[in-house]
């Protein structure tokens, strides 16, 4: 074993993640949340392909049909199968939210971590930039991204369909969320970096950080190996909270007409259109909203459980 490896092992401790998993299993709600999330993912991404219905097949004259053997959840305002629309919408919404969360967390941690750790004037300038960007109207950036990116995404889509023979509708469905995703991420990281920055600034004065510094470890190592793991708690809570809020962002954009391209669905679009039928056909709202809310609750409880599991100090009680 080289010296480097020993140092790495020492830093890691016994097995943070194994302990965390053991603690997570004791938390009932978190485990229910975990299973629900897994179930939703399996249904949307695996089970969906065993269903023969086409979610975009319009059947005028058969609108608002009640649940039947052919349409398990009935049909929507244009006679399309509700179940497959919800599942396909789930694919889009979950992809947007998770990809955007990954992006925002990585950017936020790096930016906020550096800002908080370095401190002083650099910190001041970096945080003012964040403050400034937070004041930027979200919409204008979305529209700008749509105009700038759409053409390029279309080119890639064309390449995939013509050169690699991918299904056109399939490519279209996923490629048109890219501008949306980037636009959401472009704003999502701001709050994340503020939170990380506050935590880092507090933690870098902590005893363990002092200890690491006296050991002569590099700043890079102190920041990413010692300070960042210590604030996984708030970061994970916030990240699990951003998943639902990003699904909502997408929906809010649909509220303004900048969401997923028709005729494809997303949970946001389904709920928003369903809300119009609140008085006349409430099942249009209930089905997507229930799936949506259950998923969000599950994510939230899972996030809570993860926080408790990953934060050894809190778990000692």
């Amino acid at each position, binding site marked *: 074993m080289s010296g480097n490896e020993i140092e790495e092992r020492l830093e890691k401790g016994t097995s943070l993640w194994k302990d965390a998993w053991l603690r997570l299993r004791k938390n009932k709600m978190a485990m229910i949340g975990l299973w629900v999330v897994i179930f939703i993912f399996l249904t949307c991404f695996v089970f969906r392909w065993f269903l023969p219905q086409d979610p975009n097949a319009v059947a005028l004259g058969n609108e608002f049909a009640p649940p039947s053997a052919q349409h398990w959840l009935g049909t929507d305002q244009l006679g399309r199968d509700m179940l497959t629309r919800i599942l396909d919408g789930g694919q889009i919404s979950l992809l947007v939210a998770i990809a955007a969360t990954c992006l925002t967390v990585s950017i936020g941690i790096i930016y906020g971590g550096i800002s908080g750790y370095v401190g002083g004037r650099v910190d001041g300038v970096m945080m003012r930039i964040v*403050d*400034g960007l937070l004041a930027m109207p979200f919409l204008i950036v979305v529209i700008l991204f749509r105009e700038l990116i759409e053409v390029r995404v279309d080119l890639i889509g064309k390449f995939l369909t013509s050169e690699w023979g991918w299904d056109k509708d399939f490519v279209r469905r996923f490629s048109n969320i890219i501008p949306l995703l980037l636009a959401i991420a472009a704003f999502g990281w701001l709050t994340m970096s503020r939170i990380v920055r506050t935590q880092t600034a507090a933690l870098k004065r902590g005893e363990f950080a002092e200890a690491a510094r006296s050991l002569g470890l590099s700043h890079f190592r102190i920041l990413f190996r010692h300070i960042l793991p210590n604030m996984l708690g708030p970061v994970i809570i916030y990240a699990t909270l951003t998943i639902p809020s990003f699904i909502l962002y997408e929906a809010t954009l649909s509220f303004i007409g900048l969401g997923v391209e028709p005729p494809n669905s997303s949970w946001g679009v389904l709920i928003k259109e369903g809300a119009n039928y609140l008085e006349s056909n409430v099942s249009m709202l209930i089905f997507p909203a229930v799936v949506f809310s259950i998923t969000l609750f599950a994510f939230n409880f899972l996030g809570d459980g993860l926080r408790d599991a990953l934060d050894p100090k809190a778990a000692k009680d």
Partner: protein
Amino acid sequence: MLRFILSRFLQTALVVFCLVSFTHVTIRMIPGNPFADEKAMQPHLRERVAEAFGLNESFGNQFVSWWSNVLTKGDFGLSTSLFGRSVNEILTSAFPVSLTLGLGAMFIALVIGIPSGVIASLRHNGWIDYGSMILAMVGICIPAFVLGPLFQLWIARNVSWLSSAGWERPTDILLPALTLGLAVAAYVARLTRGGMLEVLSQDYIRTARAKGVPGHTIILRHALRPALLPVVTYLGPAFAAVITGSFVVETIFQIPGLGQHFVTAVTSKDYFLLPGLVLFYGCLMGIANLIVDIVLTILNPRLREA
């Protein structure tokens, strides 16, 4: 402290300047035309409109004269989407409304959020914990454009002194503030709960407990203050977001606030209203964040050295 505030002020001013300039450029880059409506504009009239708004000059000139008007006269220019209305007029009529609504929403968020977060943390992993968290989460698990209509249908229609929408009677603030506040309450509750759990496991709290300090004194005196750190950090941007990001709530409850303008200024390509809004909002944000940082320093002595 004065030096700190002064340097913060200068930094914020610089960032806001860049931001507003960026807005000026992008609003002209995105497609659309502020004067497009159902009836086509005849070609020879386009120049007349441009003249009336000073758009016939070069962009640089327009930009400079806009800034000099703002800085010397406080004049933000004319709205291109609402004929004959100045941006100042629009801002001054909408801001008090948004501020009232925002304060109401934040009040509701804190009143619901902090107590439920504290209760949840004290009964960690018990049913009260789960129950209060589920309740707090309703606001972020049900979108505002569902919650709003549900309130209108279930509450407003059955309660005579609550209107479905509008901004006429003093009670009209309740439902929109609740819709807006619930979404924030969930975040506040969770951040409070997280912070409390963190703090309650610290040694000094244990010491206090061992010394026999009564439970509620520990919570109110020793635990709550540091536990609210993440909440305070979150409140600054959240407050600003509540003021401008309330487009959905403002549309559903028909409230004449800033949020609507933020969206319609973009969708109707209002060349002068949007920069005006961004400038106004940027300054607001800067102030909100400055206050947050001052409060943070008071709450957490460790940060003072930083």
